[in-house]
């Protein structure tokens, strides 16, 4: 990982915006938050309109041939980018770690996907590790807790960066929850196929969030956040579930608290 970072210029090169399919379809506001953040940084953000999905849903269900097709489309769309930034640890893990398994039998696709993988970054990782920025001028009076999402934490080894970014948002008080590193039970199709197990895991997560007394839970992966919000809303809890991009774009509480 560090090797890949070293190659990148620290200058403000244009960045290509890899919009996770769940953000695109369910939460355009998260993507708008990313746009705001880069605008404030003065970094041009290119948003390739042909992008769709990195292929992870098929890959995680074992459908490699179909995942490969989606991945090929992804590589074609993004391979000329200087840097690709994505507000999701899970999607970045797919590109960085799973594409090489997916393309193991095809040297040319392997090489193309590898070049792309080296230039693809998760949002908080890109801001903190590559740009060296922590304070983004965001403001929000909020007591919150941070959720470690699994692919971000275990797959990419990112846990410090989002916390640093959150701690630089003026007005926030961050409280650690118990077992933040423990899976919320989302796991894509797992949540649908094994609802008993998944819901039991999620109930623990909500208990741990509630125990912090936080008004909001902030995370870096919209899948996990939709999962948490799904049960919170079902139970009628007054918990705000936020993506870090929304928080970093906020210039006040009113910007992001939308129920």
């Amino acid at each position, binding site marked *: 990982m560090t090797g890949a970072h070293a190659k990148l210029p620290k200058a403000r090169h244009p960045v290509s915006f890899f919009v996770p399919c769940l953000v695109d379809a369910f939460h355009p506001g998260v993507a708008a938050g990313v746009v705001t953040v880069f605008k404030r940084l003065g970094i041009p953000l290119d948003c390739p309109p042909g992008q769709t999905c990195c292929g992870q849903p098929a890959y995680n269900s*074992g459908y490699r041939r179909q995942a490969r097709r*989606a991945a090929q489309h992804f590589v074609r769309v993004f391979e000329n980018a200087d840097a690709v930034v994505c507000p999701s640890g899970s999607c970045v893990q797919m590109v960085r770690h799973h594409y090489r398994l997916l393309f193991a039998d095809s040297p040319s696709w392997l090489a193309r996907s590898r070049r792309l993988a080296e230039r693809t970054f998760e949002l908080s990782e890109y801001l903190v590790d590559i740009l060296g920025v922590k304070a983004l001028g965001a403001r929000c009076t909020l007591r919150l807790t941070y959720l470690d999402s699994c692919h971000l934490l275990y797959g990419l080894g990112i846990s410090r960066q989002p916390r640093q970014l959150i701690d630089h948002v003026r007005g926030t008080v961050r409280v650690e929850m118990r077992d933040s590193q423990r899976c919320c039970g989302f796991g894509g199709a797992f949540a649908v196929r094994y*609802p008993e197990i998944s819901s039991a895991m999620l109930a623990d997560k909500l208990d741990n969030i509630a125990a912090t007394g936080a008004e909001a839970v902030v995370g870096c992966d919209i899948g996990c956040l939709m999962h948490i919000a799904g049960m919170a809303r079902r139970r009628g809890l007054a918990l705000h579930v936020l993506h870090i991009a929304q928080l970093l774009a906020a210039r006040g509480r009113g910007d992001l608290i939308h129920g």
Partner: protein
Amino acid sequence: MAEVRRRYRTIGDPVLQGALANLQHRLGPAAAAAYQALPEGPALRQRAHAIRAKAIADLDVLLAELADRITRRGGHVFFAADAAEAVAYCLETARRHRVKLAVKGKSMVTEEIGLNAALTAAGIETVETDLGEYIVQLAGEHPSHIIAPAIHKTRAEIGRLFAAKLNIPLTDDPPTLTRAARRALRKKFLTADMGITGVNLACAATGHIALLSNEGNIRMATTLPRVHVAFMGMERIAAQLTDHDILLRLLARGAAAQKMAGYISYIGGPRQPGHTDGPESFHLVIVDNGRSRILADRTFREILYCIRCAACLNVCPVYAKIGGHAYGSAYSGPLGAVLTPLMKGIRRASDLCLGESLCGACRAACPVDIDIPRMLLALRSCLAEGDRYWQIRPLNPLAGRLCDIWSWIVSDRRRYDAALACARFCQLLLPRKNGMLHRLPPPFSGWTSSRDLEPLARRPFLRRCSRQPRRHREAPESGADRNRS
């Protein structure tokens, strides 16, 4: 579905949920801290991985070396192709030595091959001597955790069990219960004809098996009876003692955050001239039982690196919910989710391959850095696409067709937008509550069993980008996400 509900009944048992949560909170973080505190640092896990990889690559040579050295000391070595052969060898040995009572050290491989039931059926009294295993055996159950076999039983349950089976006054005081077990077991140790153990790790260079325990029962089981039969999965070997140094330290840390187990026994054969104790007859049964088939597949070979420490069970959030019995085999937790399908059939154990959230905590906890999530994904690929080597056909061909359509859609943004528009139309038909989708139709209904789902936004984010001229296709900032349909 009734089967599934029964298997996951653990979820509704608050006592068991508490016990599993306690176990994980005690051992999970402690093992991680123990790796950090290693003199060589946590990178020792990767070195251990390389040691295991080398041993598995050289397995035939190492096993031959081990067998040769043990045979030269007068021990017997038997290579069992499957469970039946391993069990038959033990029964035959017991018959030859007129064994009436056997004492057992804790061993997962004997659980795998169903040894206890076979011995009991042959009229040989077989007594587990590890306290947890003893409890489970008295209760007529199976272990639910590799190193904490009775984790599913409460103190009170054990108290009632001991009162009934050992004729002691009812108590739930652990020291009193432990002393009662100890008294009962001591008699068995002193009269047993055969000691049966597993093997934690063999050493090819010296021709020994190493056994770890914290209760001292293994030493009694391997020195007091006339006959000792040790069972090992054929992968449980290292080339030399310097490898043992690394692997056993990691094993103790992964299993219980210990620097080292309380007792380590190295055994290389029967009692030698001049020795004061040890069995007259020593047998090592090296069990294949499907391992060669795994060894021959480069995708899954890595699961043979496992040293059965249970560190992955101690962090797995799925294990914490469903408990060990739900895995339906001797091997539970993430390791079992890979190993059991490979041994018993991938389709038969498809719930183990699919019923994981792929969080990756197991890999981070593994003392030998086994990439369990990668193998779970590979198993899913076998299920989805079929696999010639493992002789399975696709589990759900229809899902494969649907996935074909999905991949056709996502390889073109226009098709993708059309599909999203279609989904947005369909969601109009679904019931909502407070702006959230409240009930989804099959096959998505599992989600709404306990969770709502946000509806699709009125317009995907990318649609806004594509409306701009390509030259300036900078992403739009405004109009956040309150434009729900």
